[in-house]
């Protein structure tokens, strides 16, 4: 057994919240640079330049790159030999969010009740997904999720006869309908299989992969590239003002499913594709 004191976790989580919001990942930056080189629309190019410049200002000035510093979503890999002491793991992460969003001057975007809508003022609670793994390590990944792009996401319960074509049409149509709203250029997270709730989780989890990373299964890697091409033919472009760069990437994650089902989910991520990990 390996004991980890809750305050150590909270401290690391606070840092993750801040770093994820101040420092755009190298994967996203290089995808933006590549898009800038290829973009045909002058307005589109001007927007991509602003997004790249913005990332620099945020990094150097230690500002959040976007004012929407998101719902704090965590994917945790908990080594089976790890014991968290002092608080539960969820409490320790929640405390870290409170601290990070406060000390980092990050926006508090969470209301305590979906209909009565009173701000919790510390951006808690976070959303936490925990998987157990063998070993003595605790890996915590944060993916702060903005509201504008999250709103453009959808689950569809397709039938097996819809097949790959049905999935692809659903994804492309979803991106088309999302249009200018989710702050393109976007990253499209696609889940296929599992159950109603599992497929949404898969779509979300696919967004943790670095931009440019392909599904290890060649069948799905090819589907990702085909979807990326189709999405970029829509003409939506940077910020929806027209252009070739609607998406920087498409990620597909799959899971076994019921003989009667073909669940599909699209989780759209804005260009502030933030994800940061720490291993304790």
């Amino acid at each position, binding site marked *: 057994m390996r004991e980890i004191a809750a305050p150590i976790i909270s401290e690391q989580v606070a840092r993750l919240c801040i770093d994820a919001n101040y420092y755009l990942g190298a994967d996203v930056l290089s995808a933006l640079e590549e898009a800038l080189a290829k973009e045909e629309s002058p307005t589109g190019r001007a927007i991509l330049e602003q997004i790249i410049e913005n990332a620099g200002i945020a990094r150097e000035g230690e500002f959040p790159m976007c004012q929407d510093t998101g719902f704090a979503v965590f994917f945790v890999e908990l080594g089976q030999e790890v014991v968290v002491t002092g608080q539960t793991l969820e409490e320790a992460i929640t405390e870290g969010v409170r601290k990070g969003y406060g000390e980092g001057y990050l926006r508090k975007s969470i209301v305590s009740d979906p209909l009565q809508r009173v*701000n919790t003022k510390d951006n808690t609670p976070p959303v936490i997904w925990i998987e157990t793994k063998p070993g003595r390590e605790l890996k915590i990944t944060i993916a702060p999720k903005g509201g504008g792009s999250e709103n453009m996401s959808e689950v569809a319960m397709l039938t097996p006869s819809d097949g790959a074509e049905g999935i692809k049409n659903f994804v492309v149509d979803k991106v088309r309908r999302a249009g200018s709203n989710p702050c393109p250029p976007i990253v499209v997270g696609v889940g296929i299989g599992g159950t109603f709730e599992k497929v949404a989780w898969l779509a979300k989890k696919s967004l943790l992969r670095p931009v440019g990373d392909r599904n290890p299964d060649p069948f799905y890697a090819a589907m990702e590239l085909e979807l990326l091409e189709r999405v970029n033919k*829509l003409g939506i472009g940077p910020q929806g003002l027209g252009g070739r760069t609607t998406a920087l990437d498409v990620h597909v994650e799959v899971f076994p499913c019921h003989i009667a089902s073909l669940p599909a989910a699209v989780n759209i991520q804005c260009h502030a594709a933030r994800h940061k990990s720490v291993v304790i």
Partner: protein
Amino acid sequence: MAEAIRITTPLTDDVVKKLRAGDSVFITGIIYTGRDAAHKRMVDLLDKGEPLPVDIAGHLIYYVGPSPARPGKPIGSAGPTTSGRMNAYAPRLLAIGSKGMIGKGEMNAKVAEALQSNCGVYLVSVGGAAALIAKSIKASEIVAWPELGAEAIAKLTVVDFPAVVAQDCHGGNIYQEGIARYGIK
């Protein structure tokens, strides 16, 4: 892009009429912030026949909920939020003299109609370019509903705030024009 047009608030009809979808602009002057919660409250006041806490005649409403300011800074990061959520409210504010909105993403046909009938303009800034946009904001003062936190109405003093005309008072719509130009069947 073509040379940006410099505009100063409050805006007159003559200035608004010159703005065409696709034009780049730099805005200088006062703009007021407001997003979901503040719009609901403003429209509730209008429904009751009561005055708004700020006089928006001639002014632009910026759909933004900034991040907190660091000590010594006027504001935190301050990029636009998705305007479509304000579709239901925007025509009401245009009808009482607001000259338009700043946000991101297309607004619906009712808003387009209201822009034409009230001589208003819908401008967009780059969603997610929030640290860059904040550099053009020189002062921020909460003028209504501080209890709404990031959603309170603030009076911003801006110099050369960067934006693009998305939907104009002549029915022009850069979103539809952009897809028509760059979409591939």
